[in-house]
């Protein structure tokens, strides 16, 4: 298998997952398209380093994660590579469920470290062992972070609920 074939296979297999990963963590379709294109550009340049099997996806999540952390808008030619993709994404932007706005608010107010592990566990459906591979920590640390994140979100939701009740009673 040549590098080109391997890249095409990796791209076709994991495009939906990376697209979704990027879309969940960016606020505009332009940003989503840029994260997708930057991630796969990195994959293309490092195609020889991409692990085999399902490890590949975790490796790709790790790349996408670093791309997100370093994202600089409009500063790259990737924006042009993804031209048509951006137009498509702008057309198909999904809407957030309105009735869960309070959960979203509580989630958004969590520290970034908490949000990251919770999102990987719930949105990407990763176990703490796999989360550890994506974020580059030990499985034990990932498990601990996940546990703490769940507790903090639960506490935030409880605070919200008691605040609402207090306001209703007032």
């Amino acid at each position, binding site marked *: 298998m040549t590098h*080109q074939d391997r890249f095409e296979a990796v791209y076709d*297999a994991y495009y939906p997952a990376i697209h979704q990963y990027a879309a969940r963590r960016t606020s505009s379709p332009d940003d989503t398209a840029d994260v997708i294109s930057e991630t796969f550009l990195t994959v*293309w340049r490092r195609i020889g380093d991409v692990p085999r099997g399902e490890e590949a996806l975790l490796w790709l999540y790790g790349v996408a994660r670093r791309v997100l952390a370093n994202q600089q808008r409009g500063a790259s030619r990737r924006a042009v*590579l993804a031209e048509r993709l951006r137009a*498509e994404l702008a057309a*198909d932007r*999904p809407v957030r469920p309105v009735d*869960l706005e309070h959960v979203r608010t509580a989630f958004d107010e969590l520290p970034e470290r908490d949000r990251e592990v919770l999102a990987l566990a719930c949105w990407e459906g990763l176990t703490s062992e796999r989360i550890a591979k994506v974020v580059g920590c030990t499985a034990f640390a990932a498990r601990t972070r996940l546990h703490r994140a769940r507790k903090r979100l639960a506490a935030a939701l409880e605070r919200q609920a008691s605040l609402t009740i207090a306001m209703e009673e007032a």
Partner: protein
Amino acid sequence: MSDIDNLVRAIDPTPHAPDPGPGARELRAAIMATEARPRRTARRRLPRRAGAVGLVAAAGVAAVFLGQVAPTATPPPAATPGVTSLSGTSILLAAAAKAEAAPEGAYWHLKELYAGRRPGPYGKNGVTYYLETSSLSETWVAKDGRTWRGHRQLAARPLDLEAWRRDGSPSEWSIGPDGGVYSTSPGESTFFQNKRKHRLYWSAMPMTLKEIAALPAGPEALKKRALEAIRRDNGVDPVEEGLPRALATLLYELPASPQVRGAAYQALATLPEVQVEGRTTDPQGRSGVAVTFPVQQGQPARTRLIIDPDTSKVLAVDSIGLPDRDGSVNVVLESGWTDTKPSPPSAE
């Protein structure tokens, strides 16, 4: 899974796995047209990577539609020397005149067919062959800015029928570890009206339909505007390199007025790097003239448009001068203004 996890899952803003569309496929081609490795790591790996794709370094704007040629498919028909006595410039100017006379209508309609060889090979027990897959993609833009999209995966086609029969004539092939199959039957068609007004991109410039309609109808003014649009992307250098591609998108991809399309042809006629290479046929067997321009200055790969000079329509877009790869081609089935209402794509 805890209740908290269920709540977090419920606020996931993207509940459905996206189906890669034409944009995703173009991105893949564009990425593969860039240098495979940055120079600093390339040195270390050179022995293993020597002779690999890095032919088209950092292709930038024009990289869209970069494809390669299937091993079993015929190579893209080489443009034969012009049988017409018209010079390249006059062919483009003749097309410009036709473009200006093209009809207006209630909807801009773009219908494209993408075809290309999938990585593979497929088969078992020593029998191997490649698959060609194709899909239809349609876009409509109404004068008020409403847009519709249609998509349909068409039947996959084994490129070596004899080998496919020896493989037991399978009708489906697994795509990869994430599931999904290529099938010898066409997929369902998807068709929807976009909820929000669609933003259109001209090179790196987001534009409204009104702004596209208001583009200058003179070639020099249009070139100036094109350079401004390309300049929005800081990475493209020099910006002039993106000019042929930006002008070409006005010929078939964007809802430009007949006057602007005419001006785009005239502007292309002024560029020395744009060559009219003579008569050829597109993958549908339609006759046209090949117009090419470099993907990047100083590189052998060229983007090729096949245009019908009698109607000014772009028939197909592909790339030539690349190492043999998967023969991707973008066939333009419809591109222009129409009064026919948007409807779901039918299988060819």
